[in-house]
């Protein structure tokens, strides 16, 4: 499994950030809509009158905050992709390869009491997060979800291709999402001669493609898993602790 995973990684791996430089995602204004069966399944819990705790992992979304708080729920917002670009996380493994320090990452992020959340909205995090952080993050998420709680995650299929753009998902309705492209940021910098240059920071790049077996393995500590296939090369996965 590890060698198969590694092969996929070699196809799609690209540095999501330039080492030593943090990336602040900048979203464009253009948004697409898509119907989400996974969100529809989660929405049954969101419609409950009982207030619940929801963790939204993604850049701060006013739409999601509004949608959830209007229904009386508490929302915790934490942008893990942005946090993964912290240059202080860069370290080397036993083979001397550059990786991100997952212990340090989890010391600063996802610090919650056990069994806190009824729902975790993971979106496309696993597809774009650096390899060394994915499994530790999922393990931490497992511990923060209440028994019976749910986690919704999106995974690209192989057909999506290595340049599949990174989207931020905004909840519009029970099963409708708006997708906002998280684009590369253009920075204006003054060169040594005083001339202004435009530099393009690299945006988040698809790190890997999970097949069904990989997804099942990733969430093996969860009690149940459900797949929703869609037409836009996204596989929606709903797991229950």
């Amino acid at each position, binding site marked *: 499994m590890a060698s198969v995973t590694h092969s996929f990684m070699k196809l799609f791996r690209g540095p999501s950030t330039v080492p030593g430089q943090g990336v602040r995602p900048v*979203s464009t204004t253009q948004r697409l809509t898509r119907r989400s069966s996974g969100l529809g399944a989660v929405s049954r819990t969101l419609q409950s009158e009982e207030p619940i705790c929801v963790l939204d992992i993604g850049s*701060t979304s006013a739409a999601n*905050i509004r949608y959830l*708080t209007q229904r009386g729920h*508490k*929302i*915790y*917002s*934490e942008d893990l992709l942005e946090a993964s670009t912290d240059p202080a996380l860069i370290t080397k493994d036993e083979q001397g390869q550059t990786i991100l320090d997952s212990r340090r990452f989890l010391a600063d992020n996802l610090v919650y009491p056990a069994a806190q959340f009824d729902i975790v909205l993971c979106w496309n995090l696993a597809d774009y997060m650096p390899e060394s952080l994915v499994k530790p993050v999922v393990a931490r998420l497992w511990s923060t979800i209440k028994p019976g709680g749910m986690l919704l995650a999106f995974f690209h299929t192989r057909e999506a291709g290595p340049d599949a753009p990174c989207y931020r998902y905004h909840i519009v309705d029970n099963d409708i999402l708006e997708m906002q492209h998280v684009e590369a940021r253009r920075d204006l910098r003054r060169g040594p001669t005083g001339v202004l240059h435009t530099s393009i920071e690299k945006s988040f790049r698809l790190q890997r493609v999970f097949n069904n077996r990989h997804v099942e393995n990733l969430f093996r500590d969860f009690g149940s898993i459900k797949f929703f296939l869609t037409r836009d090369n996204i596989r929606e996965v709903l797991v229950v602790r």
Partner: protein
Amino acid sequence: MDMPKTGEFAHIGKSVVIKGELSGSEDLYIDGTVEGTIQLHGNNLVIGPNGQVRADVNTKVVVIQGKLEGNIRASERVELRKSAVVVGDIVTQRIAMEDGAYVKGKIEIQREAAKPSPAPATKPELQVEAKSAAAGSTPVTKQ
């Protein structure tokens, strides 16, 4: 709520650094650095674009353009402008956010949030119990 006119708000300027408990019964605009706690029951707080606040905040309305690390309890509303960076929990009746605002923490809406204890009926006063005032500036005490 735009940059308040001088005279409507007590003003902590860009170069001012305050560490300690900050309390008062008038509106406050912070464009400097504050560490500690901020208690402005029934009043408004604006953190300007240069403001760097590391404090728990208890007010009626908070408008954030700069950075706040700490928990916010606003009895009426919280407004986060596109340059706002908030690390901490927010409890309020209403929240308005511009695209680009960053929040890491909990957001909880409490209708008819716990009303702040009424301020004593005295003249507007801003008090600062500070461990150290900004170098080169007069203490921020207004009567």
